[in-house]
């Protein structure tokens, strides 16, 4: 029996789709059977981030409306055979699907997959309600900025009201240099305001932009963000992994050259 995890945030642009892609790929790398579902109907982009947009024939709305079987709509990932994507529709909108239909779909997929990741759209309306319908647990993504934290607080309140059994927090795009200067909230500050267990901190990493453009999630690679996402995946499957020390950025060489540059 699989676990349905919804990745949500409230605010747009904080990294839900990126997190869904990376966590899903990471879980597949750890030999789990994973399916990613893009529930953002009308503004789909999980397929782009995964690099699978040219393989889409059927989508989520086709499955819900009964135009095709789930098997036909699932797209196998380029790199990992145990990772699948169920893309969203670009030509419809969020009223095309109801929460009950989503629950039925996720219940069916639970029989076959270990993890079902729902990429939730921004906002608190129909799209959000659809995405949380069948979920067993939630991952709330936020950046350490006041507006994102405020929206995350609202979302956590709504998740509590909908009796979500487990909620964890991912602090994304953290910049330790700004935190040290006191210009940015630390992950501890964010956790204090939101009062939810932290499952991972992902630093701001240029490599994310590159990996998105290339359509290849960078989880597991030797980059700060890659390590952070892999740790999150390990924590999801139950391992106890200590938080990364994000201050450990520069290598010995850059420290030496840095000294020369300052002189």
């Amino acid at each position, binding site marked *: 029996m699989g676990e349905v995890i919804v990745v949500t945030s409230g605010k747009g642009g904080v990294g839900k789709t990126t997190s869904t892609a990376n966590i899903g790929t990471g879980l597949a790398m750890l030999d789990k059977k994973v399916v990613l579902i893009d529930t953002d109907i009308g503004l789909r982009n999980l397929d782009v981030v995964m690099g699978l947009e040219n393989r889409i024939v059927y989508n989520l709305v086709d499955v819900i409306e009964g135009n095709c079987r789930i098997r036909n709509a699932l797209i196998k990932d380029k790199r990992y055979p145990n990772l699948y994507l169920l893309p969203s529709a670009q030509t419809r909108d969020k009223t095309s699907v109801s929460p009950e239909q989503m629950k039925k779909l996720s219940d069916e997929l639970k029989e076959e997959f270990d993890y079902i990741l729902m990429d939730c759209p921004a906002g608190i309306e129909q799209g959000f309600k659809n995405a949380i319908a069948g979920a067993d647990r939630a991952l709330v993504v936020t950046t350490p900025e006041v507006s994102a934290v*405020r*929206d995350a607080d*609202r979302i956590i*309140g709504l998740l509590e009201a909908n009796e979500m059994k487990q909620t964890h927090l991912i602090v994304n795009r953290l910049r330790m240099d700004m935190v040290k200067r006191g210009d940015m909230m630390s992950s501890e500050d964010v956790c204090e305001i939101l009062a939810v267990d932290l499952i991972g901190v992902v630093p701001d990493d240029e490599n994310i932009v590159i990996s998105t453009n290339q359509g290849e999630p960078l989880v597991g690679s030797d980059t700060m963000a890659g390590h952070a996402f892999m740790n999150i995946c390990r924590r999801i499957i139950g391992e106890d992994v200590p938080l990364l020390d994000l201050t450990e950025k520069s290598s010995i060489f850059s420290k030496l050259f840095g000294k020369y540059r300052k002189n």
Partner: protein
Amino acid sequence: MAISFEGRDLTNEEQREILDIIQENTDMHIVCIIDNDAEREELFRKTLEQRLMELANNTGQFYKGILRSGASLEFETSVVIIGDVNHGARVVSKGNIIVLGALKGNAFAGATGNTNSFVVALDMRPMQIRIADTIARSPDKPVKEESKEAKIAFLEDGNIYIEPLTKSVLQDISL
């Protein structure tokens, strides 16, 4: 059946007499007398409101949990919130509000006009506080790291004051 006396003003004894006559001679059961005196009605209404306000201040209930952004709670009585009130959340009470945690949202005490109502918080950093008809808002530039002590917000001379909760302030509170 309800009865109302109009035209001539009757004293209480005269009203009693009429009621007795009706009771003896008919099968009608008079449940109440409707009073059409505007002045007396106004007096009763004021007294009732006063009593209700005092009741709101003197009775209370508890609420346990964090009030998250977007949540709005309204209480007929005073309330003790065991938890935080986050930014974007709102508490409204006809009586007093006590937050055993951080107050970062909006608190509205004395909602029906009781100017004696107060707001207490262990960590007082509200967006807006309103007591009866007066609103106060937080400063535009955040004040850097004040001491984390319990504070009370109360209304005096039409202004809302926020002061640390010391013995002398406690003595000045009237319910």
